[in-house]
C-alpha cells in the first residue's frame, strides 16, 4: 500500500516535463513518447470524467449529506388544464447518482495514479533507450499477455452496474428512513444512523421485529441445513441406485428425474402448492380415503378443520415444504452425483468387496468420504443458496396465513425465510429500510459461512493439484 503511493511520488519528483504535464493533461506523457492514439484516448477519458462529474454527478454528491431538502409541490391550473411543479429533490436519485458519482471518482483516482506511474515508466524506458511499444503492439498485447484485460473488462463493467452499485445503494438505505411514509419522488428520505438496526433487535408489543427476526433466522438456518443435506444424500442414494450394475435402462430412469428439472420452478411449485392447498386435490383424496378423519382422531389435525393443513399451519407447512423440496432438489443432486460416482476408482471398490465389506459398509467407508471430499465446497455453495432459496418458499406459501399476531404485526409468516420476508417488506409494505437491514444480516451470515469453509476447502494452493 505504501509503495503504491511512494511510486506515485517518485513519478512526480523524477518526472520530466511530459511526465509532469500528465498531472494536468493525462495524455501528455504519451504524446511526449509519440504514443499519439493512447494519449488521445487518455485525455478523452479525463475530459469525459471531468465533464460528467461537474455537469451531472457533483450536484447529487453535494446533496448526499441531507439527501435533499426541497419537497415536491405542484399547482394545478384549471384554466389551462396544466400544472406547474417546482424543482424538487428526489432522495432516491441523489443517493443513487451520488453513489455512482463517488464510485467514478474513486475509479478515476486509481486510473490517475496508475497513469502517472505508467507515464513515468515510459520516461524511464526512453531514458534507458529501450523499445517503446507502438499502438499496434499495445493492441497485440491485449490478446496475449494482457488477454485477461480484454476478457475481464466487459464482465467487470456488467458486475459493477448490476451488482456493485445496487448493493452499495441498498446498504446505504439501511441507514435511512426510506419507507412507506418517505417515498420518493413525492417525499424525501434522510439519514437516521443506526435506528433501523436497533428496531430490528428490539421487540415490544407493537414493534415485533426482534421477536420475529430471531424465529425466522432459526428457521432459515434450520431449513438451509436440512434442505441441503436431505437433497444431497437423497441425490447420492438415487444416483447410486440408478447406476447399480443390476439396474436396466439407466438412461430412461435418469431422464424421468431430469424432466422435473426442465419444467420451470414457478410452474411446478405453483402447481404443487395448489395440489396441497386446503381444498386441493391431495386433500380431496385424503378425505375420500378417510385419512383426514384418521388424523383428526389421532390428534394430528385439529377438529376445527375439515382438511389437512399441508401448507397452511406452522409445523405442517414446515414439514411439507421440506418434503416438496426433496422433489425439487434430488434430481439436481442426482445428476451431479452420477458423474462423481462414475469417477470412483473401481479397483478400490473391488478390493473392498474382496475383503468382505458389504454394500452398506462400502457406501459408508468409501463412497461417502470420497463424495464429501470432492463436493465439499459445492455443499457450502448449496447451503448458501438454500438460505437464499426464494422460489420454493415464496411460491408454496402464498396462501399461508400466520396464526401468530406477532408475526402478522411484522408482515412475516412462520414459514418465511429471511429472504422472503425481505421481499414482502419491499414489495407490499414499501419498507425498504428494514428490508435492507435484513439483507445486510443475510449477507453477514452467508459471508461468515463461506469464509469459514473457503479457508478450509479452497486454500488457493489446491488450485494446481489437478493440472
Amino acid at each position, binding site marked *: 500500500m505504501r509503495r503504491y503511493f511512494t511510486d506515485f511520488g517518485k513519478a512526480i519528483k523524477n518526472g520530466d516535463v511530459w511526465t509532469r504535464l500528465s498531472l494536468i493533461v493525462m495524455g501528455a506523457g504519451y504524446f511526449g513518447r509519440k504514443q499519439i492514439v493512447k494519449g488521445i484516448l487518455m485525455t478523452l477519458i479525463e475530459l469525459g470524467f471531468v465533464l460528467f462529474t461537474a455537469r451531472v454527478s457533483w450536484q447529487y454528491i453535494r446533496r448526499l449529506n441531507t439527501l435533499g431538502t426541497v419537497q415536491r409541490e405542484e399547482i*394545478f391550473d384549471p384554466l389551462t388544464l396544466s400544472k406547474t411543479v417546482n424543482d424538487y429533490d428526489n432522495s432516491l436519485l441523489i443517493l443513487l447518482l451520488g453513489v455512482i458519482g463517488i464510485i467514478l471518482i474513486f475509479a478515476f483516482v486509481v486510473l490517475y495514479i496508475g497513469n502517472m506511474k505508467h507515464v513515468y515508466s515510459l520516461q524511464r524506458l526512453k531514458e534507458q533507450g529501450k523499445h517503446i511499444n507502438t499502438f499496434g503492439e499495445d493492441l497485440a498485447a491485449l490478446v496475449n499477455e494482457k488477454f485477461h484485460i480484454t476478457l475481464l473488462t466487459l464482465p467487470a463493467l456488467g458486475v459493477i452496474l448490476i451488482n456493485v452499485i445496487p448493493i452499495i445503494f441498498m446498504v446505504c438505505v439501511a441507514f435511512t428512513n426510506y419507507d412507506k411514509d418517505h417515498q420518493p419522488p413525492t417525499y424525501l428520505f434522510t439519514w437516521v444512523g443506526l435506528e433501523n438496526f436497533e428496531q430490528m433487535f428490539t421487540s415490544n408489543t407493537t414493534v415485533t421485529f426482534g421477536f420475529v427476526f430471531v424465529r425466522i433466522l432459526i428457521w432459515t438456518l434450520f431449513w438451509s441445513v436440512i434442505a441441503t443435506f436431505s437433497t444431497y444424500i437423497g441425490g447420492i442414494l438415487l444416483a447410486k441406485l440408478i447406476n447399480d450394475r443390476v439396474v436396466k435402462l439407466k438412461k430412461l430412469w435418469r431422464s424421468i428425474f431430469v424432466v422435473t428439472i426442465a419444467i420451470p420452478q414457478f410452474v411446478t411449485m405453483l402447481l404443487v402448492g395448489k395440489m396441497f392447498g386446503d381444498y386441493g386435490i391431495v386433500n380431496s383424496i385424503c378425505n375420500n380415503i378417510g385419512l383426514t378423519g384418521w388424523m383428526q382422531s389421532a390428534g394430528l389435525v385439529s377438529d*376445527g378443520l375439515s382438511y389437512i393443513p399441508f401448507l397452511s399451519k406452522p409445523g405442517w407447512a414446515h414439514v411439507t415444504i421440506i418434503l416438496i423440496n426433496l422433489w425439487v432438489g434430488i434430481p439436481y443432486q442426482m445428476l451431479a452425483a452420477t458423474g462423481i460416482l462414475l469417477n470412483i476408482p473401481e479397483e478400490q471398490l473391488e478390493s473392498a468387496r474382496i475383503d468382505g465389506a458389504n454394500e452398506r459398509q462400502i457406501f459408508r467407508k468409501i463412497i461417502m468420504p470420497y463424495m464429501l471430499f470432492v463436493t465439499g465446497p459445492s455443499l457450502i455453495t448449496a447451503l448458501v443458496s438454500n438460505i437464499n432459496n426464494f422460489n420454493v418458499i415464496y411460491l408454496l406459501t402464498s*396462501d399461508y396465513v400466520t396464526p401468530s399476531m406477532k408475526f402478522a404485526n411484522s408482515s412475516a409468516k412462520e414459514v418465511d425465510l429471511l429472504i422472503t420476508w425481505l421481499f414482502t417488506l419491499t414489495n*407490499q409494505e414499501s419498507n425498504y429500510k428494514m428490508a435492507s437491514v435484513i439483507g445486510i444480516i443475510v449477507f453477514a451470515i452467508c459471508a461468515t459461512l463461506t469464509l469459514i469453509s473457503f479457508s478450509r476447502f479452497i486454500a488457493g494452493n489446491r488450485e494446481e493439484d489437478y493440472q
Partner: protein
Amino acid sequence: MKKKILASILSAGMLVSLMAGCGSNAAETGNEVQSGGTEKSSDSEKQSTKVDNADDAIQGLIDSTDGTVELTLWCSETEAYQTTMKEIVDEFEAAYPDVDFDITIGAESEANCKDDVLADPEAAADLFVFADDQLVDMVNAGVLQSIDATYTYDPAETNAVSTVEAASVDGTLYAYPLTASNGYFLFYDKNELTDEDVSSWDNLLAAAEAKGKTVGMEVSGAWFLYGFFAGAGLDMHLGDDGKNVCNWNATDTKYTGADVAAAVTKICQSSAMVNCVNEDAQAFALDGKMIADVNGTWATNAFMEAYGDGYAAVKLPTFTVNGDQVQMSSFAGYKFLGVNSYSKNIGWSMLLAEYITSEASQEKIGVATGEGPANINAAASEEIANLPALAALTDQSNYADLQRVGDNYWDPAATLGQSLVEGKYDDVQALLDEAVEGITQ
C-alpha cells in the same frame, strides 16, 4: 418547508374554488392533505368542482396540444373490461378529432394497483382503476391528482353521495367514481334454498346440513370478517392519526367482542360451513356441493353458470349473538379511476377520466361487466338495476360501511379470523386484545 407546501396548496385551492364560484371551505380542506388523516366525513359538504367556462378551457388545451398525446390506462384484465374500455377510448378519440392520440390499455388487477403504482409512480399508467381501500395510501404517497376541477360533468352531482365521499379524503375528491359494487353479499341456489333459509345463518346452515350440502364464506379473510363485528355494533376504522381505531375487544358494549367471536366460531363449527377463498368456492359450487356463498360481483358469472336457473343473490343473512338476531354488516366497496399526478399529460388524462366515468360510459361498463355503476342514473337504468347481484348489493348497502382501513388491519384480522374458524383458542379475550393491538399499532 411545510409552510411553503401549505401556501401552494392553499393558492391552488383558492384558485379552484374561485373558478368554481364556490369558495366555501376550500382553504380548510386544503391544509389537511399533508396530515394524511381522515375523518368519517359524513359532515363534509357536497362540493361542486365543475368549471364554469369549461369549453374555453378544453379548447385552449386542444390548441396548445401538438404532437401525439400518449396515454396509458390500467384496468382490470378481464375480457369484458378490456373490450369495453377499448370502445370507450375509441369514442373518446373520435370526440376530439383535432388531436392525435395514442392510448394504450394495460391489464392490471385493481387489487394490485397500489403496489405497482407506488413502486415507481413515474413509470405507472396515466390513469388507473383501483379499489377504494387503496385510496388513502395513494393519497398519502402523493400519486393521485386531486380533482380540483371538472369540465364535462360534476361528479358530486351525478354520483351517489356515499361514492363521492369514499373517493374523497378530507373533502377533497381524489378519484373519479366508477363502480359502486365492490362489496359482498350472498349468492345462493334458489332451487335448494328458500327465502326463509337465506335470511339467517342459523336457517341457512340448518338447511344445508339437512341436505348434506355446504355454505361458503372466507371467514378467515379480514375483509369478510369485518361484517360480523361491525354488524354487532363494534367499531373499526382509520383514525385521524393514520392508525386504526378498533374496539373489537370491548367488554362494555351491548354485544362484547367475545360474544361476536363466539358467534363466529359457532357458525364455523357447523359441518355445512366451509371457510374458503373465491376460487375454491367457485369450484365447489360448480361441483354442486356448495349451495350458497358469501362473495362479490366478480364471481357472478361463475355462480350463474353453477346454479343455472336457480341463480339468486340476496343481502347477507343475520346471525345470532347472545340469542339475538343481528344483521351482518359489510364493507361497501367501490372502484375508482385515478389520474396519476406524475402524468405528463395531466389535462388529457383528466378529460379521458371524465369521459370514462361519464353516465353513458358507466352504463356501458355496467352492462358489460355486471358491476354496479357509481352514477345514479346509470345505476337506475333498467338493464342494470334488475341484475340480482346488484339488487342484493343495494339491499346490503343499508348495512354496509365505507372501507377506510389502515394497512395494519389486514394481517392481524386475517390471523384472528383463522383462529375463530378453528375455534382453537384458550382465552378469547386475550386473542381479541392481541388482535386489536396489532390492528391499532
